[in-house]
C-alpha cells in the first residue's frame, strides 16, 4: 500500500484522482454506486453568477471514442448553490471544488467572492475554456491577454486555492499557462473540451442545437497528454491533467507526463465507479513498481 497523498499547492488530496466538472454532478448522483469520499476531490458543475437555462436540446452527440456536448453551463446560479446545494454536500469527506464560469470579468470576480465565504470549499477552478457559451467562456482562454486579465482580477478577489482550467483550442497552450501563472494562479488544470461538430448526413442537419460542441473522451487523450506534458515543462505551479482518462493506466500516463493529479470526466458516464477503480489501480501500479509514494511518478517519464 503506497502513499497516495499529494498536494496541489495548499490543497491536500488523499489521492490524485478527482472527477471533472460537468461530468459528476454534485457528487451525490454517484453515491448509490460508490463511496464518493474515497476519491481525492470532486469538481462540481460549472457555476455562474446567475441562473442559466443552458442550450436547447439536443446537447449531445456520440462520436468515435468520444462525445460532443453543448450543455452550455445550465445551473441555478451561485446564490442557489450556496444556499441549497452547498449545505447538502459540504460534509462529504473530500475536496469539493467549484468550477466557476462567466461571461464577463465582473461575473467571474463576483462569483469567486461569494464562494470565499464557504468554509468547506478549499478551491475554485476558473473555467476560461467553455466552448459552449456565446460570450465569454472559451474566448477568455484563447488569448494570453484576456486569460491574464481575468485571472488577475479573480486572484485579487479570491483567497483560497485558485485553479485555472485551460482551453486546448489554442496554438500554444504553454504560453497561456505561463500567462495565468504570472497572474497568480496556484495551479492549472487541462484540458477542457476541444471544439467539434457532428452532422446527421441523412437529415443534412447538425446534430447539436448549437451546431458545434465540446469533444471529450478517449478520442482526445493523445492531445490532452501532449498538452499536459508541454505545460508541465513550462510552468512551476502544479498541473492537473485530464482528457479521456478511462482507467488507471491512462491516469498514470498523465502523471508521468507531469500532472500532480488527474480528473476523470466522460468515463464516469460509462462506469460510475471508475474513479475508485483508478485509485485502486494507481495503488497497484505503485506497489508493483516499488514506489513508496505517488509523488514519485509525477513527471517521471524517461526521455
Amino acid at each position: 500500500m503506497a502513499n497516495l497523498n499529494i498536494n496541489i499547492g495548499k490543497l491536500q488530496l488523499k489521492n490524485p484522482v478527482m472527477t471533472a466538472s460537468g461530468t459528476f454532478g454534485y457528487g451525490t448522483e454517484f453515491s448509490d454506486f460508490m463511496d464518493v469520499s474515497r476519491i481525492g476531490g470532486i469538481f462540481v458543475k460549472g457555476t455562474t453568477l446567475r441562473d442559466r437555462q443552458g442550450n436547447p436540446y439536443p446537447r449531445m452527440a456520440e462520436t468515435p471514442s468520444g462525445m460532443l456536448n453543448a450543455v452550455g453551463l445550465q445551473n441555478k446560479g451561485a446564490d442557489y448553490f450556496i444556499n441549497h446545494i452547498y449545505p447538502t454536500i459540504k460534509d462529504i469527506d473530500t475536496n469539493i471544488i467549484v468550477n466557476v464560469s462567466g461571461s464577463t470579468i465582473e461575473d467571474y470576480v463576483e462569483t469567486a467572492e461569494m464562494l470565499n465565504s464557504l468554509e468547506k470549499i478549499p478551491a475554485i477552478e476558473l473555467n476560461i475554456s467553455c466552448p459552449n457559451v456565446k460570450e465569454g467562456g472559451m474566448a477568455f482562454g484563447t488569448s494570453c491577454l484576456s486569460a491574464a486579465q481575468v485571472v488577475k482580477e479573480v486572484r485579487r478577489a479570491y483567497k483560497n486555492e485558485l485553479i485555472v482550467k485551460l482551453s486546448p483550442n489554442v496554438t500554444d497552450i504553454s504560453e497561456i499557462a505561463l500567462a495565468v501563472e504570472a497572474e497568480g494562479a496556484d495551479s492549472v488544470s487541462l484540458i477542457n473540451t476541444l471544439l467539434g461538430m457532428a452532422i446527421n448526413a441523412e437529415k443534412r442537419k447538425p446534430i447539436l442545437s448549437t451546431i458545434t460542441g465540446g469533444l471529450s473522451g478517449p478520442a482526445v487523450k493523445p492531445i490532452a497528454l501532449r498538452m499536459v506534458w508541454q505545460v508541465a515543462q513550462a510552468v512551476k505551479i502544479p498541473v492537473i491533467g485530464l482528457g479521456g482518462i478511462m482507467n488507471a493506466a491512462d491516469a498514470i500516463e498523465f502523471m508521468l507526463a507531469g500532472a500532480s493529479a488527474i480528473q476523470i470526466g466522460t468515463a464516469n458516464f460509462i462506469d460510475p465507479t471508475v474513479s475508485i477503480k483508478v485509485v485502486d489501480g494507481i495503488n497497484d501500479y505503485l506497489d508493483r513498481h516499488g514506489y513508496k509514494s505517488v509523488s514519485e511518478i509525477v513527471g517521471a517519464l524517461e526521455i
Partner: protein
Amino acid sequence: MKKYMLDLIIKENKQLSNQYSLLILTSPDKLPEILPGQFAEVRVDGSPTTFLRRPISIHYVDYKLNELWILIQIVGDGTKRMAEMNVGESLNMLIPLGNSFNFPERKDAKVLLVGGGCGVAPLLYLGAHLKNAGFEVNFLLGARSKTDLLQLCEYERFGNVYTTTEDGTHGERGFVTQHSALNNSNFDYIYTCGPTPMMKAVAAYALKIGANCEVSLENTMACGIGACLCCVTDTTDGHLCVCTEGPVFNITKLKWQI
C-alpha cells in the same frame, strides 16, 4: 430508490423478428425493486462504434422467476449487438433509473395504454402493475405491419388489447389515434410511449377528451443519472433531465406544441 450497477445474465434471447429481440435476463441475486416506466443504462461490449451506454426500458419484471425482460429494436450497432447476445453472456446495466408512471387516484378510472413501435416496451410492465392494483387495463398497440406487433399474448394477460397496423394486416388499418376504440370511450387516464408524432397525437386526443395523460420520452442520454445534463426537455419548470425527472412526464408539464 437505490440504483445499482449489475451484471445480469442472458437466460433467453427470443428473436421476435429481424428487427426485434426479447432478452430475458436473470441474476444470482434477487433483482432490486423496479417500477413501471423506469429504464436501465446498458453497457454494450464488443461494438467499436458504441461508446456510451444505451437507455433501454424495463419491459417486464417477474420477481417469482427473478427475470427482467427487455425488448430491443435494432436501429444501430449498439442495439444490434444487444439483440444478438447469446444465452449465458452478461449485460452490465445501471438500474433502476428515472421516475415511473403514476396511477389514477380513483380505482374505477378507465385507463388506456397506447404504444407504437418499440414504445410498447414499458407498457407491458405498467399494465401488469395497473391490473394488480385493480384497474381495468386497455392496451392500444400500433405498428407498421403484423410482424411488428410483438407477443400480444403477453399484453392479453393484463387487459384488453386493441391493435392497428398501417398496412391493415392486423387489427384496424391506420394509426393508433384512428382506432375506433377511441371514438366514444371516455378514458380518464392515458399512458403513451412511442414515436414523438404518435405521442403528440395521443396527447392531443387526451386534451380533447379531458383525460390525464403521461408520456414517456426517449431523449438521447450520456449518463442516465442526472450528472451530464444532456438529456433535457423543455418544461414549464425550465430544462429538466429526462433521465431523472422523466422519462415519464405529464403532458401538462411539457412545452409541446400540440
